[in-house]
């Protein structure tokens, strides 16, 4: 069942009057396949279209309509499976999951119960503090999304939008290998990064193309497993974590009061932060799964699989190893840089022809900080990778200091322009001419004889002079040269 029997880190235990508890978490992620057409019809999948404008006869389940498998979606599922280093099943099949609901026109969802396209795999999940855990993957299968029921347009009627109906989803089921909300969030983040690297899912939780069902149970650390509850349809990292925290405490409270956990499906209320019963085990549907007779089994040839494998991009784990071994970056810096395909590509662009570590530091400390602060995506950064490459190049060649570099970056951010030209035009080049620096220093010492006299006794006050020189040079004096000359003259 588990990938590894693991007891939660003590810091993740929940301690009450009766002792310690740990949380056991498994996730089912629904990742929308980044495909222009639906899983079994040619209808479009664009986000935000007018209701019921992206609905084919098949999606609306008109009489006599038949599904035809979109092979592009199959390819994306296989790519994702390969990215998770999971077993790819050369034989898979679609089953019908039968239930009635107005947003499910066929009266069944086409899914894969008995023979999923991807079997077991493993994912290394970094927790952000240098620690990492391994999360087992149970399976990945393809299925159709349902339409959307809209209950709040009319007090007496429910409206149905079928645009989403039939859109291809990859359901990725993890093993119960997570032990805290933070681990669950890290897993989702890693999976999101992976599908974005692969281009198999946009991973945009706000648009609902990555959603999670969370299975939560609690137990005494290392003890017998408890009964789990499933919390449905969480669509943000924050909600996932809050729902887990709430649900774990709810279950502990029941158990500590001598109660039992009912295995049930629950919904998370984003307003109150609580979960509530959606349906109990007794009310669970009998889905009457059986192989869909309208569709042939999916058989994948070795050649086809080999071609897919060869076309995979470098994945985050491999990229991280390369950044550490080839570029000499720290594990931590490397894992931050590879956490997102665009970030990694941006970094490689900036580092091209430059000092790799310097480029990493520059991005991690300056550029990403600014992007975060301004809430701008890296793809929308007003300072291009090429501009940053030029700035880093000027730092390492001693043309500008780190401090001036920040100034140049700010100018590029607000006004745009070529960094080299900015440095040139605004005279921001570092002054490395020792004669000029010496002249400035002499002037400052002459103006502050008392201060200068103190330096010998209190060497720390040398810093005051450095500041004065930098101010006088408008930051352009080479700080190293300033230090050296000051030391010579005053110590």
């Amino acid at each position: 069942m588990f990938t590894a029997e693991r007891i939660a880190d003590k810091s993740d235990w929940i301690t009450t009057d009766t002792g310690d508890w740990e949380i056991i978490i498994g996730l089912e992620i629904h990742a929308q396949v980044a495909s222009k057409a639906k899983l079994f019809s040619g209808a479009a999948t664009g986000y935000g279209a007018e209701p019921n404008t992206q609905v084919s006869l098949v999606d609306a389940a008109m009489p006599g309509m038949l599904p035809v498998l979109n092979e592009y979606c199959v390819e994306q599922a296989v790519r994702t499976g390969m990215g998770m280093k999971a077993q790819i099943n050369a034989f898979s099949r679609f089953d019908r999951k039968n239930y009635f609901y107005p947003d499910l026109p066929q009266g069944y969802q086409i899914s894969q119960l008995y023979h999923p396209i991807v079997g077991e795999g493993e994912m290394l999940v970094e927790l952000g503090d240098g620690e990492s855990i391994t999360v087992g993957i149970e399976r990945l299968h393809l299925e159709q999304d349902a339409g959307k029921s809209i209950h709040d347009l009319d007090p007496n009627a429910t409206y149905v939008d079928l645009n989403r109906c039939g859109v291809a989803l990859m359901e990725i089921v993890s093993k119960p290998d997570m032990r805290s909300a933070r681990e669950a969030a890290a897993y989702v983040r890693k999976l999101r990064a992976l599908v974005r690297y692969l281009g198999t899912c946009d991973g945009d939780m706000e648009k609902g193309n990555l959603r999670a069902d969370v299975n939560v149970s609690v137990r005494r650390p290392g003890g017998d497993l408890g009964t789990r509850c499933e919390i449905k349809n969480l669509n943000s990292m924050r909600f996932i974590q809050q729902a887990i925290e709430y649900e774990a405490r709810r279950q502990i409270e029941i158990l500590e009061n001598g109660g039992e956990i009912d295995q049930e499906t629950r919904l998370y209320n984003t307003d109150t932060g609580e979960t509530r019963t959606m349906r109990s085990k007794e009310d669970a549907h009998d889905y009457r799964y059986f192989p869909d007779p309208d569709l042939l089994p999916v058989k994948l040839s070795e050649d086809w699989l080999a071609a897919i494998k060869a076309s995979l991009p470098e994945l985050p784990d491999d990229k991280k190893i390369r950044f550490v071994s080839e570029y000499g970056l720290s594990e931590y810096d490397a894992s931050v840089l590879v956490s997102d395909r665009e970030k990694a590509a941006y970094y490689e662009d900036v580092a091209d022809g430059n000092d790799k570590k310097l480029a990493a530091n520059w991005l991690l400390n300056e550029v990403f900080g600014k992007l975060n602060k301004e809430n701008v995506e890296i793809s929308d950064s007003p300072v291009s990778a090429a501009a940053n490459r030029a700035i880093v190049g000027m730092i390492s060649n001693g043309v500008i200091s780190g401090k001036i570099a920040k100034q140049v970056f700010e100018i590029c951010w607000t006004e745009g322009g070529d960094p080299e030209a900015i440095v040139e035009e605004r005279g921001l080049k570092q002054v490395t001419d020792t004669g000029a620096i010496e002249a400035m220093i002499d002037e400052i010492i002459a103006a502050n004889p008392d201060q200068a006299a103190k330096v010998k006794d209190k060497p720390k006050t040398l810093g005051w002079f450095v500041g004065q020189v930098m101010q006088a040079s408008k930051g352009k004096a080479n700080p190293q040269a300033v230090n050296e000359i000051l030391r010579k003259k005053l110590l």
Partner: protein
Amino acid sequence: MSTLNELTLAGALKGLASKDFSARELTQAHLDAIADADQLNAYLLTTTETALAMADASDARRAMGDVGALEGIPLGIKDLFCTNGTRTTAGSKILGDFTPHYESTVSANLWRDGAVMLGKLNMDEFAMGSSNENSAFGPVVNPWRANGETQQLVPGGSSGGSASAVAAQLCLGATATDTGGSIRQPASFTGTVGVKPTYGRCSRWGIVAFASSLDQAGPITRTVEDAAILLRSMSGHDPKDSTSLKADVPDFAAACTRSLKGMRIGVPKEYRVDGMPGEIEKLWADGMDWLRAEGCEIVDVSLPHTKYALPAYYIIAPAEASSNLARYDGMRYGVRVDGADLTETYEKTRGQGFGEEVRRRIMIGTYVLSAGFYDAYYIRAQKVRARIAEDFKKAFETCDALLTPTAPSAAFKIGARYNDPVQMYLNDIFTVTANLAGLPGISIPATLDNAGLPLGLQVIGKALDEETCFAVGGALERAAGFNAKPNKWW
């Protein structure tokens, strides 16, 4: 009244080609015959204007030298085929006045080849039945009556409207569908030729689904050659149906006169069922003699799992149907009966919209798929199905085609078996096996029984070997010399 409707399809093609009459005249003759045959209840809808417009268009094409394989041929369409702009009911009330904005691939192929649509033919609701008594629009009446009797007989089912219309000369041929015998059994009951081709030969796209893994479209006509001509136009790979076969469509008509010399015809011993009328036994023996005379060798074969075929069929077909019919929920099209809440709306809509037999099969299908029963019923039935397919494969190692009766009886009286579903299901005993194995089968009218009612012989061929079915069928047709017609009483 014109007698153009008495022609065969092949004969009509010749007459049209030699300008003996126009497509409009041919179509009008059929429309007149239909108007005169309300008592048969074969047509649910006669598309008079469309028919005449299509006939005129056909005449115009012919004048331009643009002549399709079915140019100007008036046909009836089973109401299971969706027809663009023409109401399609599947024999059910639940679809209301549903009018598709799309055309089934099979019917589109017919119009592509120049055929003319006369109207939509009555059928058992959702193709479930063997007597056509399950139509929401009343039973179809068989044009045949027992000697000296006036009692109305069933035409068989579910393609009873198609069979009755062809037998009564209300069209030159009709489309039909066969899930467990729904083409061949009514053909046998009405003295017509019915062909269920190999599963996947005809596209299922646009045909209201009953049991997807078994449903297959085919023609009902008055001669083997007519069936061959019609099937050729109906067939062909369709990318819109994943189960449609990528196989070339041969000239089936050319196979109808092929020599049978040296061919081995298998006779499965398991088809000698208890209580089979002596007349059917005799017809079967006559069939063997006719084929021996053509130079065939008759060999005994065994299909040991035959006795499990009917039970397996009545698990698999209802299971698929229970799911296929879930879409008739009153939400998007068809009839809705509002209830106090969603569940009650579903219950009322489906409870009132579906007839008794459809409800029975949905319940059976729901039951056999439900948790705890799935393995015992559905999975076992699938295993039986695989065994049955193996039986045929083995049998075909020693023969080229099989000869069997089509049905265990002649047409029976309306109402006689209506309240005994098991007795009714037994009608399919010789036909379901071909559906379970996906094989082609043809029913040939071969004789009249003592009461003067037609009986058919069935030829089952290897997958995609309809040509051998047509060759053997053609020989049986010639040997039997069956040319009886029902006496017009309507």
